[in-house]
């Protein structure tokens, strides 16, 4: 019982990441019809927004020590972060809270990045075959990741959560089970809540405005929508920017859970495509549902009891479930007819 509860909790944060990435991806992929292989890279860029903000906040004033020397004989450097030197305690607080703080930077940056990417590149590919979209976005993904690699190196860079949020929440105790058995790191729970918030906002926006309908229509038939006086290009740009921002936010907040490295995007890329397709092309709720389904199932499959029954199941569960779902439901969980079926 405890174990199962734990695994459900445990599936939440990963599922939230899948769901958020898939949400942005399905906007680009299921709605705009662009096979965006750079979406993982957008997630990674978001994560590196957090890294950059942290680096900037902890930029050092470097003074050379007069007495101490390094092992190779040069004077030792003494470093004090500017933020601390200038703002005192507030500076320390800022550094501590750098991950949440970097959201403020990530949103405009990722929006801008998304908009530029759409204007400069993706726009010219709406009418081109999917294969060419794959090639160009994959090329872009490689370029982005290599740039990050040359700036930040290949090693993971840890981003601690704020001190105050590093603790554990004892869910077991809260529902009357033995204390200390069903615990969950606070930050992961915050990530889950954050994801729900983002997903909620996106859904509300699409539900209570005509934006979603117009974008869907534009996808089905750009020309006709244009003939009805709608500047579909602008809406596509906005959609793309929003999708990039969602991916970026998912990345920023994920850094305390998984230390980001330049390859982070590629690791999530394939899975997020699987999630989107299992959810069904063109369905936002589908993408979110599939994100949670696969994330939690993956958690379960990693339980020792399951693994001893079916060795290796934890490594293939996502794909296995994907196969089963796609074979029993032709268009995934909630896919719409005619989207990307040819």
């Amino acid at each position, binding site marked *: 019982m405890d174990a199962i509860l734990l695994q459900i909790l445990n599936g939440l944060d990963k599922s939230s990441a899948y769901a958020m990435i898939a949400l942005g991806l399905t906007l680009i992929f299921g709605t705009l019809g662009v*096979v965006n292989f750079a979406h993982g890279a957008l997630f990674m860029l978001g994560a590196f927004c957090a890294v950059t903000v942290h680096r900037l906040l902890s930029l050092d004033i470097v003074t050379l020590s007069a007495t101490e020397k390094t092992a190779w004989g040069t004077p030792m450097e003494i470093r004090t972060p500017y933020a601390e030197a200038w703002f005192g305690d507030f500076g320390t607080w800022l550094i501590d809270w750098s991950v949440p703080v970097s959201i403020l930077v990530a949103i405009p940056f990722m929006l801008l990045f998304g908009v530029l990417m759409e204007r400069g*590149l993706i726009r*010219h*590919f709406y009418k*081109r*075959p*999917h*294969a*060419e979209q*794959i*090639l*160009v976005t*994959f*090329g*872009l*993904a*490689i*370029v982005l990741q*290599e*740039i990050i690699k*040359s700036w930040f190196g290949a090693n993971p860079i840890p981003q601690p959560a704020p001190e105050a949020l590093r603790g554990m929440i004892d869910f077991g105790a809260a529902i009357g089970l033995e204390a200390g058995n069903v615990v969950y790191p606070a930050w992961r729970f915050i990530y889950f809540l954050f994801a729900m918030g983002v997903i909620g906002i996106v859904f509300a926006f699409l539900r209570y405005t005509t934006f979603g309908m117009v974008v869907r229509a534009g996808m089905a038939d750009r020309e006709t929508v244009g003939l009805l006086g709608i500047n579909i290009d602008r809406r596509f740009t906005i959609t793309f920017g929003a999708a990039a921002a969602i991916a970026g936010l998912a990345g920023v907040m994920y850094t305390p859970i998984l230390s980001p490295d330049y390859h982070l995007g*590629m690791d999530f890329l*394939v899975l997020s*495509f*699987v999630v989107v*397709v*299992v959810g069904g*092309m063109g369905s936002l709720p589908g993408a979110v549902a599939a994100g949670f389904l696969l994330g939690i199932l993956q958690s379960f499959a990693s339980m020792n009891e399951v693994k001893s029954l079916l*060795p*290796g199941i934890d*490594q*293939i569960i996502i*794909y*296995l479930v*994907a*196969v089963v779902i*796609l*074979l029993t439901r*032709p*268009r*995934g969980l909630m896919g719409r007819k005619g989207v*990307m*079926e*040819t």
Partner: protein
Amino acid sequence: MTVSSSSPRGDMLMMLGMIVAIVFGPIILAPFGAGYPDLMQKFAIYGIFAIGFNILFGLTGYLSFGHAAFLGVGSYSAVWMFKLLSMNVIPALILAILISGLFALVIGFITLRRSGIYFAILTLAFAQMSYNLAYSVLTPITNGETGLQLLLDDPRILDAPLASGDLPLANLFGLQMNSTYETSFLGMTLYFNAGYYLCGVILLVAFYFAMRIFRSPLGMMLKAIKSNQNRLNYTGVNTRPYTLTAFVISGIYAGLAGGLLACTDPLAGAERMQWTASGEVVLMTILGGAGTLLGPIIGAGAIKYFENIFSAFNESELNAVFSFLPDGLREAVVSVASTFVGEGWQLTLGVLFMLIVIFLPGGLLEGVRRILSLFNRPPGGGMEERSARVKSAA
């Protein structure tokens, strides 16, 4: 490439061009630093892989994201044949073809129930499952991460025992795959390698097969599937057997390529089945020009060339290359250039992908065509110049 635009003469010229290119491969490639056996073998092998992939993708439009699974299966089968039966490549290749064909039949039968992106993800899922299992649970068959290799104490039933301590070598009735005749020509070393010629001959056969398929009613049907599958059903054609045929043929091509990888280098690793490997053949095909006969070969060559030659540049070599520049300038040039070669080779590849799609929709072959049309040559001829130009473009 519609039926009407192909002429028997054009095809003949194309075939002749291929033969010339393969026979004189070592001479043509040497000036580009690519004329050594391993890379030439890889060109041919990945050429086969890409041609096969293109039969499925280029003709029917079914984008498989799991073709590397067949490559891997082919390799494993071939190595097992080496271990169990004989170091002769023939049985190994036969088994590779059989097993990968069977594997493709099963996977194709299941995945072809869906089309479009759903099909792509299904194939991806199967390949990833194969990869993950090969990496861990199936270690007794695949030797996990290390990869399946030849051991001194393998049974090799048909082969005579070797002097102790010597690992056997893959051969074709005694002609060893690694036997190479080296000679010097205009200051370059040329390598004429048995393994390369084996791969080359098989590439030729594979190419011929593909050409026949492109020009056959089957090819036309496959193109019709890409164009409007629904209509084809109402025209009285059951499309499933056609797509399945294409899938199995391309699976066999992949398996054959995998088998050849094992013949030229008897080790089969699981990462050959990873999605990145499947993605690579997709990129090769698109980069060269999907749906064309020569495109995939060119694309395969370009990517392998980058992977092997661009990654090998290091600073000292760059310094040598730019030694004609004054010191300060040279350092600047070298530091810029070094972000694109050596460990930056993937950056260059990424940039190349983007440039090609943006400026040459239709792939590298399209670029070759445009250049050729500048010279106003008849299509199909001038093969050496063709590949030469692609190289210099790359």
